[in-house]
């Protein structure tokens, strides 16, 4: 096994504005995101040799929309980590040496689905303990981690809510600085803490919204990237870990961490040569589908010691001006969760930060930027961690 470090570069990215996009179909979103990426890369669409997509059909969703002439296209899925997986598949293909320039694109059109969140279809073959987890709405899954976190670290309800609320306040502030965000308003800690409950202890501001959106990346080798632009971005590490239901069948499962996160981050850091993430990471995008998800992620990816995530966020360490700014684009909290596209949207922010083009939310002196994209359900997640650096 070798590292993927320095074998793959991003030369162009696009992301649509997210929101309730009643005037767009999923193919429109693919077109908007992909042509922004192609234009940003400064290539001709004829130069794309292969494609990967999420959220739309493989054969027609990309080539049918973009009219890329007969290039090979594949669809990949990894639940809420589909966007990260689309990127990963494209990156592995470039690293294989078989393709030079490829595209990764994804789009979600969830508002047309007639639901306001991810519907959980009870699998009739799922019984007992498993059914509780399998058939519960998503906020319930993450509430299990929140209550356990409180219990284990001896936090009161108020203490936990303050920490979670602070995450929402931070992400809402960052969202106001991102023209492509969905929610673009500040909230106060008071509002966050007192918001209506969704799944105790999670309230309205602890949950992200499922909305429409698309994102795309043009990926190549660093050698080719040099020909197209000076400020390409280099992939340094790529880790994926997938659960096997441990959390549903093992009484030892802690509900205090996501083992998939820990492993995926470890692999990515090892490939990138990162020894101390707390010192070396300059910018981080975490999968904050729920604020408690971001809280646990701090600890899983090693930017807070266990049990200290709440203190650290309250101290402002993850603010734009903090030591490691987290979710500078507003996170899923403010840019929503267009499920198959979310991972690519997170990488879009890493890309802009590495290029120094994140405008009002730019982090200074980026060395390593991490995107953490997590999919699945309680006890069995798939997490993809990607580490990027500006070109050397």
């Amino acid at each position: 096994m070798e590292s993927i470090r320095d074998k793959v570069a991003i030369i162009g990215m696009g992301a649509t504005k997210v929101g309730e996009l009643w005037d767009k179909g999923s193919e429109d979103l693919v077109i908007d995101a992909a042509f922004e990426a192609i234009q940003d890369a400064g290539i001709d669409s004829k130069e794309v040799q292969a494609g990967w997509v999420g959220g739309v059909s493989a054969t027609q969703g990309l080539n049918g929309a973009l009219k890329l002439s007969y290039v090979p296209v594949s669809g990949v899925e990894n639940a809420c980590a589909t966007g990260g997986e689309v990127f990963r598949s494209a990156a592995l293909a470039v690293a294989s040496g078989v393709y030079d320039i490829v595209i990764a694109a994804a789009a979600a059109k969830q508002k047309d689905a007639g639901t306001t969140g991810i519907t959980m279809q009870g699998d009739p073959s799922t019984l007992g303990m498993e059914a509780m987890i399998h058939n519960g709405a998503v906020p319930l899954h993450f509430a299990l981690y929140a209550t356990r976190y409180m219990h284990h670290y001896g936090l009161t309800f108020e203490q936990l809510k303050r920490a979670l609320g602070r995450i929402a306040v931070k992400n809402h502030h960052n969202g106001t600085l991102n023209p492509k965000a969905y929610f673009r308003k500040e909230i106060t800690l008071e509002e966050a803490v007192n918001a209506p409950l969704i799944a105790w202890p999670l309230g309205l501001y602890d949950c992200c919204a499922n909305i429409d959106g698309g994102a795309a990346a043009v990926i190549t080798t660093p050698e080719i990237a040099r020909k197209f632009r000076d400020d390409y971005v280099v992939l340094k590490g790529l880790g994926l870990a997938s659960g096997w239901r441990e959390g549903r069948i093992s009484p030892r499962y802690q509900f205090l961490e996501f083992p998939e996160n820990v492993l995926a981050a470890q692999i990515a850091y090892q490939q990138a040569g990162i020894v101390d993430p707390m010192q070396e990471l300059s910018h981080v995008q975490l999968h904050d589908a729920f604020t408690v998800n971001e809280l646990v992620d701090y600890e899983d990816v090693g930017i807070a010691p266990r049990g200290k995530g709440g203190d650290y966020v309250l101290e402002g360490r993850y603010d734009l001006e903090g030591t490691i700014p987290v979710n500078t684009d507003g996170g899923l909290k403010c840019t929503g969760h267009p499920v198959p596209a979310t991972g690519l949207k997170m990488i879009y922010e890493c890309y802009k930060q590495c290029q120094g083009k994140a405008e009002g939310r730019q982090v200074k002196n980026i060395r390593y930027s991490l995107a953490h994209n997590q999919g699945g359900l309680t006890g069995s997640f798939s997490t993809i961690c990607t580490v990027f650096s500006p070109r050397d």
Partner: protein
Amino acid sequence: MGSIRGKVAIVGMGCTVAGERFDASQEDMIVEAGFEAIADAGVETKDIQAAWFGCNSVSANHALLNWSLKLGYKPMTKVNNGGASGADVLRHACLAVASGTFDLVLALGIEKATDAGFTAPGEGGRAFGGEGHVGPESLFTELRVPAQYALYATRYAHQYGLRPEELKEALARIAVKSRRAGARNPRAALRDEITLREALESPPIAWPLGLTDCCAVADGGAAAIVCTPEVARQLRDDFVLVEGLGQASGGREGQLAPSYSFSGLPETALAAERAYLMAGVRDPLRAVGHAQLFDAFTLLEFLACEDLGLAPRGQAAARLQAGFFDPEGELPTNTDGGLLANGYQPGGTGLRQVYESYLQLRGRAGPRQLKNVTRSLVQTQGGAAGSFTSLVQLFTTRD
């Protein structure tokens, strides 16, 4: 663009019995194919570094694979490419090994269609989700699958001046050939031979295609252990090398362009060109000793032969009648019975086709074994009329 040749090997495979598997769940079939492949490769589950999974009938992610095999917290990915999902699963595994990131990985695909409550794709709803299609496009998206391929059959007959009886007889001969091969394959879904007369008189499904011209939707799947040639050498003497991976995906050209021929699949021709280039094959007819073609419908075997350069345009029927594609002929095709005898399992079909190549190249195909096969071709496709994804994969015996 580079080649995959010399970078990837297959060291183990497993394949379920196909059919109406009311005795097995999805998980059971994953275990059946997966552990056979693992045992065949002589590895342990802990040696598998990553996995790719195909199963069109479950959504979301890889989870079913890891839940069934308990491979631990390894990277896993679900691949979707319509009817070509199984073939694309193998392609992803090969690309990942070629990238150097992984040394030994698993590619597995299954489908469990009989429990889904329908007997064919598209029944009880639109075949391909026809989201908001109107006008000429809806003609394709609203048509059942046999009706889509019937369009190619009638056009093929017209183009090459075949009378309806001639076309029917040529198609029937493919059905007879595949079912004869299926009868010799203990893992096939349909193991009864049929006569030419039975094929000719089978009830029409979508004229000119009759019942025996259409494959059945069946349960089943297959798995492969894919690794670098260096690792393969340590595991077994008779591994198989991946020599070419060609793929082409349409963008609805056939649904939009008046010039679309309906007498061949440009996707297959291009995928073949790419695979041959990678493998350094100049004359496929001489170079390929065995071929597994996507015969979901009999006619598709003709189109594939011509698109792949295994028969001149319009000549596939004549070649078939002359016994060219029989097990004793110059270029045996679908020696496992093809989809016509093994059924259609979109998540697994491509891998099941490769399973036969894997056996043939290693001399392990039992009563179906061909002599002196050193290069085998597998063609798989998914999609709908006018817009397919086609994969052409080339395999050789170890050097």
